């Protein structure tokens, strides 16, 4: 099965599946200098091999995608799909130049990085973790599975959806980055995550025996300290060491 459009030869579903599977390893050889350049070329390779049959053209394809690239690993499929479409148009002489592809990658990579980091790292991951932590607190080992499912089901689906959308839209993929459904979803997960984590924290602090005890009072004292110290820009490792020392001291008082 192929995607229909004005171009002469289209990528097959199998090629897109291969790109999709490789996209899970886009940061495999992340470097300080070029970031995800090899990773991007590696992910796009199945499409490149389909599009460029001539070895010299294929070499140019690799060199093009070994340029600096940085973007969010979960939204990389959006860029991969769009770039695959642009490569096709470059081959067909359909108003796309090599410079256009490089400029597009730099610009969209940054936009995708910003949107993706907020959506996945700052929102979905903490939200899924809070769900997993609550489940672990109540159900034990199943908490890990709850977290894995809460995080990975949307990720696996969105990555495929974005690959297909990117390939369909080509350079017009910017529409998808500004998807109006992203903001409400982000706000919901941030709000729900905050409420649930606060609920869990109180539950954890009060947990030992469900009674107001010295342990609860000690935990509350360390809670305040753990909250105040990071606000004074003290590194987390130092906060933990100080907390651990104080925890032993409190432990000595209460036992």
């Amino acid at each position, binding site marked *: 099965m192929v995607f229909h459009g004005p171009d002469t030869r289209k990528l097959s579903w199998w090629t897109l599946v291969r790109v999709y599977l490789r996209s899970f390893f886009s940061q495999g050889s992340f470097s300080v200098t070029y970031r995800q350049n090899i990773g991007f070329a590696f992910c796009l390779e199945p499409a490149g091999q389909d599009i460029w049959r001539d070895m010299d053209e294929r070499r140019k394809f690799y060199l093009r995608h070994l340029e600096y690239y940085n973007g969010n690993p979960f939204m990389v499929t959006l860029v991969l799909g769009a770039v695959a479409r642009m490569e096709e148009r470059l081959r067909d002489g359909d108003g796309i130049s090599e410079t256009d592809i490089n400029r597009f990658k730099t610009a969209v990579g940054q936009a995708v990085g910003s949107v993706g980091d907020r959506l996945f790292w700052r929102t979905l991951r903490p939200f899924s973790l809070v769900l997993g932590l609550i489940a672990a607190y109540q159900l034990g080992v199943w908490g890990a599975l709850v977290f894995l499912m809460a995080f990975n089901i949307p990720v696996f689906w969105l990555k495929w959806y974005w690959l297909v959308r990117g390939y369909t839209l080509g350079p017009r993929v910017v529409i998808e980055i500004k998807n109006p459904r992203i903001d409400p979803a982000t706000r919901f997960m941030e709000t729900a995550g905050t409420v649930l984590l606060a609920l869990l924290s109180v539950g954890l602090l009060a947990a030992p025996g469900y009674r107001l005890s010295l342990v609860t009072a000690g935990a509350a004292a360390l809670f305040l300290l753990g909250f105040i110290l990071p*606000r004074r820009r003290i590194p987390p490792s130092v906060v933990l060491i100080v907390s651990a020392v104080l925890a032993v001291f409190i432990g000595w008082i209460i036992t």
Partner: protein
Amino acid sequence: MDFWPVVILLGGIVSMDTTAGPQVMVSEPLVSCTLLGVVFGMPETGVLLGILFQLLWLGYMPLGAVRFTDHDMAAFVATASLLAAVRVFGMDARMARAAVLPAMLFGILVGAVGLRLTDYLRQWNGNLSDRVMEEFESGGVTNIGRWHLLGMGMMFLKGAGMTILFVPAGVVTCGLVRFLPFGVQQALMGGSLVILGAVSASALHFYWQNGKRRYLLLGALGGVAWFFMALIHGS
């Protein structure tokens, strides 16, 4: 000692999954510590340590270009050390609880070493990129997958190597708790309970920074109501 091959393999996977791929989050402490608990036949202890470390590092994100403490490996090595110490030295539940704080502090050291190693590997990957580009520029076509796999493999080896090196050291650190005076052991046990306050604060601070203060208070009020309901129900 039958657990070693599995623990080393898991260490490699945790290190790889953190940034290199597939980033399906098996590297998060909640998952890796639970898995370790299952491997060592102590699932409840694994889950508890997973909750502890996850709360501590909830706000830590392995964003691509950011230099971050290797918190995933830190939690993994600390948990593996504690669980292995329980198995190797036959420590009871009281002793295991006393070893939680030393294991956590040992984890901080591991996280700092992990950060340096990741920095080094990312520099090394830069040289790898230079070599790949040189090959293409000189007119050849090289197997890019092989180079990419090399980068990922090094990340796996980093995790496996850290496990081989640090877990035995962590086992000894946790095992030393047995030789401490009884009073100090008791203090460490109590400390392992109250430290939950500090790690909860660490997690909540993440949302506080994001400006979700009203909702934090709302959730906390809900938690207090939950607590009193449990109290009434309990009595």
